[in-house]
């Protein structure tokens, strides 16, 4: 378990926290009453790990987040291939794949003060080891329903990626930016 970084990330300049809104490729996969055998078969066929432990994610080239007993988010993926492969693996098992790229976006919060900033607006314990590199969680952030995961996009430990409904993303950005002012953010 790494300690919190004490120096700002180089790209952050002198700012202790940076907040960036971005588009993400996101599929939500739902499978009716999946068994461990389904998860194993999906992992084998799709060539990626499929998480079955609640509130965990796998971070291969394609990240898969456990959202619920019948629900996963797949981040950063070629859509068509995966849908076809899933249909083959699941055969007659009822399932549903939704492309949410148009309905969700992501807010990246990184820099040395990222965790402190999120702690102001989120009641979850986001400190290691309670919330580590393999964690993900659906929760409320400043009254908004989100899904949080750590990000390694900048190679530091101070980053989080927040999945949020696109309709409310600009409001959440404003709330985070306001909350960040105490850390000296612009």
């Amino acid at each position, binding site marked *: 378990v790494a300690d919190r970084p004490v120096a700002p990330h180089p790209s952050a300049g002198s700012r202790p926290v940076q907040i960036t809104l971005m588009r993400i490729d996101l599929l939500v996969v739902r499978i009716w009453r999946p068994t461990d055998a389904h998860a194993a078969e999906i992992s084998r066929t799709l060539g990626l790990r499929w998480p079955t432990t609640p509130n965990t994610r796998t971070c291969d080239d394609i990240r898969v987040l456990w959202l619920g007993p019948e629900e996963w988010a797949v981040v950063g993926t070629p859509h068509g291939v995966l849908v076809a492969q899933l249909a083959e693996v699941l055969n007659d098992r009822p399932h549903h794949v939704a492309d*949410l790229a148009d309905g969700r976006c992501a807010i990246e919060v990184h820099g040395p003060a990222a965790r402190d900033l999120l702690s102001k607006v989120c009641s979850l314990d986001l400190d290691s080891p309670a919330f580590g590199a393999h964690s993900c969680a659906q929760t409320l952030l400043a009254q908004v329903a989100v899904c949080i995961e750590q990000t390694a996009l900048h190679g530091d430990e101070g980053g989080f990626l927040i999945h949020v*409904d696109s309709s409310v993303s600009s409001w959440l950005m404003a709330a985070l930016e306001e909350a960040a002012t105490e850390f000296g953010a612009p």
Partner: protein
Amino acid sequence: MVSIEHLKRYTTLGMATDQGKTSSVNGVLALAGLTGRPPADVGTIRTRFPYTPVALGVFAGQRRGALYAPTRKLPLCRWHLAHGAVLDDYGGWQRPARYRRAAESDSDAERREVLAVRRAAGLFDGSPLGKIEVAGPDAATFLDRVYANTMSTLPVGRLRYGLMLNELGVIIDDGVVARLAADKFLVGTTSGGATRIATMLSEWLQCEWTDLRVLVAPLTTCFAVPTLTGPRARAVLEAVGTDIPVTADAFPHMTFRVGKVAGIDVRVSRVSFTGEISYEITVPNSSAEQLWSALTAKGTPLGLEPVGIEAWMMLRLEKGYLHVGSDTDGTTSPDDVGWSQIHNRNVDFIGRRSLLRPENRRADRHQLVGLTPVNGARLPIGAQLRAPGRDQSSIGYITSSGISPTLDRWVALAMVKGGLKRLGEQVEIASTSATFATIAPACAYEPTGERLRG
């Protein structure tokens, strides 16, 4: 009673604006006198935070001003603002109330928008309407239980209006269901119900009907829904170009088609909340502005105007279409809005049993009717109604009303005791003395409903 804590709880002494600073001292002395003890033996109440006045902002924290509560932005927000839209909050969404031109008053703008729809065409942003995919081999069975009316008989490619009840038999939502495939439906909810209904559907599946093979996928905010309506709506659709045959025979009311409009992949649904020919065009957010701009570019020469919510609500009011939450409250049953045919169903559905209670069968329940003004009477929303004569008690109230630009008079919907059997009777508007209205069918404009089929 000997304890000061008892005294506090029975009398609320020590609460309120002084937080006990004066009252509690008096209380201690009074209790000491009554129980024959020195005040010191009575003691004081256990004080709790806050001991001293605290500014409200300390508790509010970030939650003030624009950050008080989350607001949702439409995918077409930028276009609306660039074209004179006055945004207002509707169920958490910032939506165009109207598009105001220079020197226009609010009511001028709304009147112009209503008349544009009746005479030519209007374009309305219906994006917040709930869109929930319900999929799986038992999807039809599930929806038969969830809706007060039958959905399993809906053919693929068709649309059906439905009412949802809670277990008390009270109407909680309405909307249009599309059957996308034998085992896949798109449940349309009200804009305000989108999140709540998706949660409710999942709850029933997780807690009550665990045997049903059904998955629920909320997709509301992935798509925008430009809605084209009016006698020239079809002409606008043809002008922007579509590979969907749009004649009335090829694409009738209450059906949907998948295809291209202005070269963009969309689903088009013929469903009307205005009483005019209407096309709800469901388009991914990322293509919404391109489609909307194409529709306005080709539509403007045909008389198309963007239409805000206020005009939209007047259009539906002229037609007497139900608006859940305005015309209904926490007691309204399907029978109260004229939906007694659901008693003929032979499957169980949420709320059915409650509809058979004596309370729900009373003949004098409030029922939804229309009102026609007598001698130009005003029909203010919320006004209580009474029967002419000596009895001064309320027999109902106005739930929706306004001055109809189409009919040039007040139109209103009202909940009236036993109203469906009182058509033609006069009622007195209690809040404006000695003015009257006649109880009428809910639909004030074009009751034959031919215009929307055309």
